[in-house]
């Protein structure tokens, strides 16, 4: 079968990694198999440059993770709502972080659509094969709420839209049935908005946070 070497490479890297972990921390995998007790649910972007556990140097077991295009939380999306239900309802995870990032393709497309511009200038480099979102596609539907935010706030630059997006998705999370129910039942649960800067590798707390008592003024 004519796969390129990528598949073989990933599997080989995994084998080596597993060996290193077992040597460094014998019994790690056996313990891992007993269960998971993550304290954080990460709602982030599918972007390959933002792997939550690598950029926070976290071992398996630390971060429960949902990644989609432009880190969205749509009201009627069974996909994310089932993640929330499991994370909050079953695993009782106390912290949800919604993490946006700079140079987000989804944000760029939404901005370009709202400004009636071709998105070309946001994708000057590598790997972007189709510079437009097909009309009537799932991707167009998916980016519609974000495009609406861009239209409603036309003065925002692309990067400012990215930040506004994080705030909007945090609001989406706190309005979900799952979160409302958790707070009604006095569950310890906080939702935060963060931003990852690709150019520096730094995560930043945006100072957007909500807890059982409402919006939190300061987060650090």
């Amino acid at each position: 079968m004519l796969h390129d070497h990528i598949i073989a490479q990933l599997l080989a890297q995994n084998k080596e990694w597993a060996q290193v972990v077992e040597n460094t921390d014998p019994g790690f995998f056996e313990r891992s198999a007993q269960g998971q007790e993550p304290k954080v649910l990460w709602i982030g972007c599918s972007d390959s440059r933002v792997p939550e556990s690598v950029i926070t140097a976290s071992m398996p077991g630390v971060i429960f993770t949902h990644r989609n295009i432009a880190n969205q939380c749509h009201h009627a999306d069974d996909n994310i709502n089932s993640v929330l239900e499991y994370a909050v309802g079953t695993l009782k995870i106390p912290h949800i972080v919604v993490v946006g990032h700079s140079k987000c393709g989804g944000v760029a497309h939404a901005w370009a659509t709202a400004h009636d511009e071709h998105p070309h200038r946001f994708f000057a480099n590598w790997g972007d094969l189709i510079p437009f979102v097909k009309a009537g596609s799932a991707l167009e539907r998916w980016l519609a709420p974000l495009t609406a935010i861009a239209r409603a706030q036309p003065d925002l630059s692309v990067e400012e839209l990215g930040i506004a997006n994080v705030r909007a998705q945090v609001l989406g999370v706190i309005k979900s049935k799952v979160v409302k129910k958790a707070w009604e039942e006095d569950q310890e649960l906080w939702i935060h908005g963060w931003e990852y800067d690709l150019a520096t590798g730094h995560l930043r707390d945006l100072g957007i946070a909500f807890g059982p008592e409402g919006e939190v003024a300061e987060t650090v």
Partner: protein
Amino acid sequence: MFYDHVLASLLANNKQWAADVHKAEPGFFEQCAKGQAPKVLWIGCADSRVPESVVTASRPGDIFVHRNIANQFHLDDDSALAVLTYAVEHVGVTHVIIVGHSQCGGAAACHAAAQSPAPASAPDAPLGRWLEPLTNLARDGNLGLEELVEENVRVQVRHIVESAVMRGAWEKGRDVWVHGWVYEIEKGMLRDLDVSVGREDVAA
């Protein structure tokens, strides 16, 4: 306390990691900021124990990712479809990998639910709806839990193969592949189920 040390330590770890990377490879982040060209889309479980880039020792930029409950790819799910579309058509990944895993809470719940007959009415909450196909799979095939984890991967691979995105890519002559893997948490090891589908495997 609302701002647990957990979050503070993630941020501190990140700062240290960024500094270490910058020291070892001074241009790395600058390059990242220019764009992405991952060759792989990983569709896996949200389970905290299966972070794709850690278990494959991959770097930022290597793997485009969608993680949800029990690594599903439903053909009517805009979230997963948007990811597949963006990954294949906009970013140019050449391999789409569905990765299931042992000790999957979602699969276990479905396996347990399948021991009883199907309820009279459809589930009315997101998680129940989300896992309904998997529960049906377990019930219809009378599958054991391990079998269910594997069959689940095979079914999701079939869904991706059937998707308009993949059909479109293959029609254009693109060499894109779909694979099915299982991650064994007990050993930290990935296993290829050898169910890969490429352009030449699909009828013209």
